[in-house]
């Protein structure tokens, strides 16, 4: 029979605007978080990471915010460019429970309109 595909959450922004991609994580014991960018047909590419003893970390045009109280992670991209169009994944690690392995979220598709 015909299968119904699951659609990723999509965020559409205008070129030059700021983008905010959100991620809810599941394990309160997670102590390391990472964001990946995946372009069509390619493997995930590291963007930025943050440890649980931090609330905020900045990179080049990107900022990651961590709210441990509500188990929420966000990725902010400043001055979004067409080259930022991709699927963005957050991942968490809880050394205690997972032995150091990353658990990935479902991903959010970012579409940048020129």
């Amino acid at each position: 029979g015909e299968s119904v595909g699951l659609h990723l959450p999509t965020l559409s922004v205008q070129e030059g605007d700021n983008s905010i991609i959100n991620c809810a994580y599941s394990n309160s014991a997670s102590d390391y978080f990472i964001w990946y960018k995946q372009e069509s047909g390619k493997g995930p590419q590291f963007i930025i990471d943050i440890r649980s003893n931090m609330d905020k970390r900045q990179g080049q045009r990107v900022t990651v915010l961590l709210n441990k109280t509500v188990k929420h992670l966000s990725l902010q991209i400043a001055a979004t460019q067409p080259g930022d169009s991709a699927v963005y994944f957050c991942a968490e690690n809880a050394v205690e429970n997972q032995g150091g392995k990353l658990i990935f979220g479902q991903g959010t598709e970012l579409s940048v309109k020129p």
Partner: protein
Amino acid sequence: DAGITQSPRYKITETGRQVTLMCHQTWSHSYMFWYRQDLGHGLRLIYYSAAADITDKGEVPDGYVVSRSKTENFPLTLESATRSQTSVYFCASSESLPWEQYFGPGTRLTVT
């Protein structure tokens, strides 16, 4: 070339066939990983390896076999391929845990 490579990039095989996907990294990273990526499931860990001759199961290991005789290589074998194993497979490596993992370009496998 430096980095992490996978071969083949595309593979079509029949149900019941044995298939081996290759992964090679040039960084001498201790840790290597195999993931599968399916729509609606994101990236799921199949197996990982902490060093040569040390491997462990991930979230979805059934139907797969791995080996790691050398630090730089981490082949993944589907002993008897099934249609449910149609997916995109990614290999990754990491210098240590839980730090960032570097991903290969992926292998798109279709089982008919």
